[in-house]
């Protein structure tokens, strides 16, 4: 043999000698509490990285105000490039050095890390991704997870019923991403359509890597749909609208809450976004409560101007964490923090969202959207069509 395995016996000895270590309270000192964030700062979903940057900026604001119980927030921000493998490495790094992880983005990232979170008892606050990731887990494994994110199926069911009502049509078209996001939404959309006596005549999917959506636009036109529901990224939604306009097809547009940032949508789709209906789960630019947060975040990190929607999300992620830390008291432990979070009821981040309700039974504290309508492209306004509609929590 040209190459031998050296020290196999020693390796076996090392295998047997593995030990576990435990720190007192990870990430907590007398003067600091370390909050970990892993997000897509680069890669295909880098636009969502702004949420992490906004969280970092808002944490600086909290520190300017004196921190929480005499401790400053120390943000450790890691890039995972939207790649589950890299996120696992980041979580491994943070599980013993950070007190909690806040605001992770991506269903695949959550799936790859859910066991690690359960086993290390690491609090995971406001992860952004499919609610079903944790809903499918046994209760004991989601004890440290606190999520406030609408369920795609519930939202789809609601949106299609509103579409039937507002567009006055029974012919619905569905444009979705070819993964769990699109698939869960279509389930709800079909359920809602049946309730409203309508029919999903066109079901068109795209791949995240697709850049040319002419075929999808043509398929949608041929289906004869009079209202189109969008469950896609902003780029793909705008791409579809442009291609549909090219072939002279202008159905009424209804968009999922992931497209709630109308500034981004107007920038990408121009006046094609005028009059579009969209769901929103949080406060928007132009509403006093949201404007207050946006002003704080963009003062600290001016780069975030023009991404106001993400600013609100990032700030709210920190706000709820601070609320939990405040309630947990000066004598901070992860267990105490979890108990404190479970006690949060009717919390609205000073009016930015509908009430958030956690309890020992329910860690999916927020499953609500409201319907909005975009105004003119020239002033990028939006008005509210329905108040917040609450769906039951999933875990």
């Amino acid at each position: 043999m040209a190459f031998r395995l050296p020290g196999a016996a020693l390796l076996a000895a090392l295998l047997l000698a593995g030990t576990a270590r435990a720190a007192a309270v990870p990430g907590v000192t007398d003067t600091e509490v370390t909050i970990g964030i892993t997000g897509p700062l680069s890669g295909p979903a880098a636009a969502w990285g702004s949420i992490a940057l906004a969280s970092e900026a808002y944490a600086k604001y909290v520190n300017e105000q004196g921190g929480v119980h005499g401790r400053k927030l120390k943000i450790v921000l890691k890039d995972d490039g939207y790649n589950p493998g890299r996120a696992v490495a980041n979580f491994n790094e943070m599980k013993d050095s950070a007190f909690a992880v806040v605001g992770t983005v991506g269903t695949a990232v959550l799936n790859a890390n859910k066991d690690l979170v359960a086993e290390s008892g690491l609090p995971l606050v406001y992860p952004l991704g499919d609610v079903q990731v944790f809903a499918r887990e046994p209760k004991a494994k989601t004890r440290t997870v606190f999520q406030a994110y609408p369920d795609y199926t519930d939202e789809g069911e609601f949106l299609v019923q509103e579409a039937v009502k507002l567009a006055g049509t029974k012919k619905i078209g569905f444009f979705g991403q070819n993964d769990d996001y699109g698939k869960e939404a279509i389930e709800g959309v079909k359920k809602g359509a049946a309730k409203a006596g309508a029919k999903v005549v066109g079901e068109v999917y795209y791949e995240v890597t697709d850049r040319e959506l002419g075929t999808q636009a043509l398929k949608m036109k041929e289906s004869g749909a009079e209202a189109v529901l969008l469950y896609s990224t902003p780029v793909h939604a705008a791409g579809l609208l442009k291609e549909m306009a090219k072939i002279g097809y202008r159905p009424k547009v209804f968009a999922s809450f992931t497209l709630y940032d109308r500034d981004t949508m107007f920038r990408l789709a121009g006046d094609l976004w005028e009059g579009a209906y969209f769901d929103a789960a949080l406060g928007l630019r132009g509403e006093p409560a949201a404007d207050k947060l946006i002003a704080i975040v963009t003062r600290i990190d001016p780069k975030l101007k023009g991404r106001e929607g993400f600013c609100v999300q990032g700030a709210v992620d920190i706000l709820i964490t601070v609320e939990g830390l405040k309630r947990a008291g000066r004598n901070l432990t992860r267990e105490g923090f979890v108990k404190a979070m479970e006690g949060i009821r009717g919390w609205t981040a000073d009016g930015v969202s509908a009430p958030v309700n956690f309890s020992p039974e329910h860690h999916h504290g927020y499953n609500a959207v409201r319907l909005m309508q975009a105004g003119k492209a020239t002033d990028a306004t939006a008005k509210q069509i329905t108040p917040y509609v609450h769906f039951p929590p999933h875990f």
Partner: protein
Amino acid sequence: MDLVESYREELRFARKPLGRALLVLGLLALAALPWWGHRSWLAWGSMVWLYAIGVIGQNLLIGYAGQVSFGQAGFLAIGAYTFGHLRIAGAPFPLALLVAGIAAGAAGWLVGFPSLRLKGPYLAIATLGFGTAVYQVFANVEALSGGRAGLPIAQLRPPGGMDRDVYVYLLYFALFLLFTAVAYNLVSSWVGRTFVALRDSDIAAEAMGVNLTRAKLLAFAISSFYTGVHGALMAQYLGHLEPQAFNVQESLNFFVAVIVGGVASVEGSVFGAAFAILVPALFGDFRWAVPVLFGAAILVVMIFEPLGLAGAWLKTRLYFRMWPFR
């Protein structure tokens, strides 16, 4: 330079006592990483080891046999999903790993058939088509990919209350050593010489008595076996599978790792894997600049060291061997 007196001696991995001692020390240091490194290094380390297995496989095909393939993500997916379904059905880890490798290897053997007629860019396009097709099948056939929930894979249970991260790291390291040793032996046996002959001139190789059909299919099968094992180890590591992880980008990453590491070099493959995994990790604090730095690093390596990191390593070794003479 030292004197090599026989082919047998030429093949020895580390010829001098000092080199052998350093190699053993280095490997021991890596095996002992859980006791001296930061915990997060275990995660990065495990990823490097499993990635290295795949890159070695890819290098056997591209570097040694000269068959350019852009369909590696397809074999990766086949290995990962075979492994996932077997584990869910209750198969033990080693069996599932082996079958995953064999399944991917069989797929590689089949995909190898076009390589009998196609060369260079044409083969690259054919294999690219294969990779895309596999991805689409997994993305759209829910019975295979586990549907919306994806495919959850139970974590490994470490023996005797051992810390799981440590166990996984050491297990992956041991597997990496095994597959590296096999690869070294392969390339220095008649198989490797057949591959090289095939790469340099297939007509000459055939005239020398090399069975081209067999050699090309074997190259695809072995390479895919390695890639399938990589897929299985990744599936076990992530504990969850979804088709998105196996898109075309993944095949390109492999290619980058092979080229940057050094074509036709087993240790180069390891360097390439380390580069592909660790550079984004080390540059993590530069945020948006990570892809730029990654791209720039590739450019620099290609311009100044066309043989890749393996070439740089060889030159460093030669320098110290001759030192203080030049």
